[in-house]
């Protein structure tokens, strides 16, 4: 277990290194000059040149990358060009909100998706099953911005059940988490359904029935833990998908997460922030996958640690 973790961690570090390298190159190629953004519209050519030198942006790409990497190893993500603040401060101030949202969303989508999937599997072939699957499909296909605004309009503006955007309490979390969760729950319900259908056919479920266990116990204790195994691996992939949706959802609900930070930074080519956010979300994804692996390792005793 220990050596497995170490090995996976090393692998993850390599992946992060690759991500940082590719991002760096891509940003370098971007047809936009960050220095002009900083210098502003009244700047003279002299000022622009000064700033370029001070930021080291006149150096060759390799040198810039090497320097970045050196700083990174000391935990220094650099300073935002436009906000003039440590990128790490900016990210740290926003990360908790994003993580909370992500946790809420994962919870929501697992709750909705898994229960829809289980119900559909238990009633497979019935009308309920068909309706649930269509609902899940609409969930997958509906644009998040529209879903978010609709939820906001109905539940916050009209019904006053939840606050209109903002951050702080549990009731602030419900709608944004739900918005993000709806997309994922569509995926999960389909996966869970087929997985559950498979498991319910297994011999050990028959054994459990032969033992005289209650239906509830058979479903919760025997079928569910087995059916959920293939779904766990999906959670790792999911973190990546979240990173895309987070921009939209955070802006609809005024959620102070890194999505908005990234969005602003991309618009203004604030390279240190883009780099920082990329690395942080890549780390989140890598950790997500790692956690998914470890969870399946813990839940499924059959997986051999290679």
């Amino acid at each position, binding site marked *: 277990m220990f050596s497995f973790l170490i090995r996976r961690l090393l692998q993850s570090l390599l992946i992060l290194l690759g991500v940082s390298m590719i991002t760096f190159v891509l940003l370098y190629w971007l047809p936009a000059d960050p220095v002009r953004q900083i210098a502003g519209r009244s700047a003279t050519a002299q000022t622009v040149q000064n700033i370029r030198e001070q930021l080291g942006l006149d150096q060759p790409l390799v040198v810039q990358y090497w320097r970045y990497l050196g700083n990174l190893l000391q935990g220094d993500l650099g300073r935002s060009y436009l906000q003039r603040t440590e990128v790490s401060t900016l990210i740290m101030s926003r990360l908790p909100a994003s993580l909370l949202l992500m946790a809420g969303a994962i919870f929501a989508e697992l709750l909705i998706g898994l229960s829809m999937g289980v119900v559909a599997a238990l009633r497979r072939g019935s009308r309920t099953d068909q309706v649930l699957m269509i609902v899940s499909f609409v969930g997958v296909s509906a644009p998040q911005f529209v879903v978010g605004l609709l939820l906001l309009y109905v539940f916050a503006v009209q019904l006053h059940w939840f606050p209109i955007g903002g951050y702080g309490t549990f009731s602030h979390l419900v709608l944004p988490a739900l918005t993000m969760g709806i997309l994922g729950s569509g995926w999960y319900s389909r996966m869970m359904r087929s997985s559950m259908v498979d498991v319910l056919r297994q011999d*050990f479920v028959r*054994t459990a029935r*032969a033992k*005289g*266990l209650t239906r509830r116990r058979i479903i919760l204790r025997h079928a569910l833990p087995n059916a959920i195994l293939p779904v766990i691996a999906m959670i790792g992939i999911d973190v990546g998908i979240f990173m895309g949706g987070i921009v939209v959802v955070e802006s609809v609900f005024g959620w102070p997460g890194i999505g908005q930070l990234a969005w602003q930074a991309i618009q203004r080519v604030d390279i240190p922030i883009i780099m920082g956010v990329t690395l942080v979300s890549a780390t989140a994804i890598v950790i997500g996958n790692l956690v998914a692996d470890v969870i399946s390792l813990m839940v499924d005793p*059959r997986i051999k640690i290679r």
Partner: protein
Amino acid sequence: MIGAAEKPSGAYAPDAAPVLQVSNLTVSVNTEAGLKSLIRNISFSLNPGETLAIAGESGSGKSITSLAIMGLLPPPVVRVTEGQICLNETDLLTLPETRMRDIRGNRIAMIFQEPMTSLNPVMTIGAQLSEAIMAHDPIGRREAHTRSLEALTAVRMSQPEKRMSQFPHELSGGMRQRVMIAMALALRPDVLIADEPTTALDVTVQREVLELLRDLQRDLGTAMILITHDMGVVAEMADRVIVMQSGQMVEEGNVKQLFQAPKEDYTKALLASVPRMGDGSGAQEGGKAGASIAEIRNLKVRFDVRGGIFGRVTHRVHAVENVNFDIHAGETFALVGESGCGKSTIAKALAGLVPYTGQVRISGSEIHSLTRAEAKAIRRDVQMIFQDPMASLDPRMRVGDLVAEPLVIHKIGTVAERSERVAMLFDRVGLSAAQMERYPHEFSGGQRQRICIARALALQPKLIIADESVSALDVSVQAKVLELMRELTEEMGVAYLFISHDMAVVENISDRVAVMYLGQIVEMGCRAQVFGNPQHAYTRRLIAAVPVPDPTYERPAGLRLAGDIPSPMRRLEDAPKLAKLVDIGEGHLVAMQD
């Protein structure tokens, strides 16, 4: 508690009131064409302490009968349409599900055929046992744990304490089946239904499990319904037998009577197709040894097991160690041994599926030294038939195409010629050419194995490797397939490398036999030598373990085996000891034992 001598030894008491009474049971399935009955008018009674065997070939309705008793038929498609099932006066069919749940596991328990899949893979053995107990007895977790442990001890599980916290995949098949038995008997049910409890197990393990069942049943006085298609098991275990065919009872009677004087034709045929030890009438002795087709010298196959941070090789599975043998044209060479001893690995090495060291010479050429094209050509001479015909046929292809595949791969003939050839092959193995358009799942197991044989024959090979090719088949079907193989040897001079764990079958079909243990051959010789004069202790044990389809046979006592087979996985520096084979006369090789 189990096994304590507080109950009187539950010998079979024919006149006591039956504990289970099944009358006129009909189970039907809902199809598009309406109700179709799967079993019809089944009636029997089960007395306390009695063992009733239900025998019959696959699909005859044995499992459906037992599931009906358990109330576990898959609703709503399959249901009981007529009849009664009474457990001591209670009609089980009229009970609501909640009451039925109390009876299941408590008063009627069941053991299933597949020990590998019948246990929940993500729960510990202990949890699964305690759960069963707690479902019926209002006791605490700790007490349930104690009782589970007792149950495990009662089934003679080694290291029961440790097993409690292990997961099913960490146990061998035999051990898992013991867990199933412990689970079934922990609550001392009145009736135990064992549906093919040993079919998936090795002979030696089967032996142990059967003995265990018998001992426990005797001690507890449980009435048992034993479902099996193996007449040997029936003969050894049962007091009474029911023979089923196509959902109907064909014959019922005392086991001795039935074996000695079967009344119905079907029963007679069934008994006739049972391979029996000691009547290897099918094969003639020796005399057939032609040129050697395959020569295997110093064959070694090892699998690396990696571990640690950098994935270095830490262990090695010595699947095959230093194996030497020849196969001659037209002969059937059999490899026998317990699961995991390396039989399949040898087959795979021959078929080019695993890398090996040592020499494999086919038709005189050493495969390693050939170019790819030559190797491909030479491989045509060696074809393989696998254990599970379903698994070895691509389920998404039509069987006609599957049989034509080798011809396509080796670019033999035109399209028309190929289909003609395939039709001929189909005909040869007893299938109709019209069936070429179907998919594998549309055939029965025996038919599928014929398709595999047809496919192996397509290239007119000199050697066919049959890896457990008949083990999964019903006795009757098995007999037919074996018959077909024998005919082919005579007609085409095909040699077989016949791999099996079933000593009875091996004795029936083989010319020469090699017994394997832990990757090495421990005894080799012609059939008469190995079966008639087994020298190695392991060979003797294998032979002794085979159930004898004769209820009058008295098994010599004292041959109980201890523990599981040791693992061929070893640390890197720890190479296994090589057995030395000594010729004790006329080519009968036996490993030296210390």
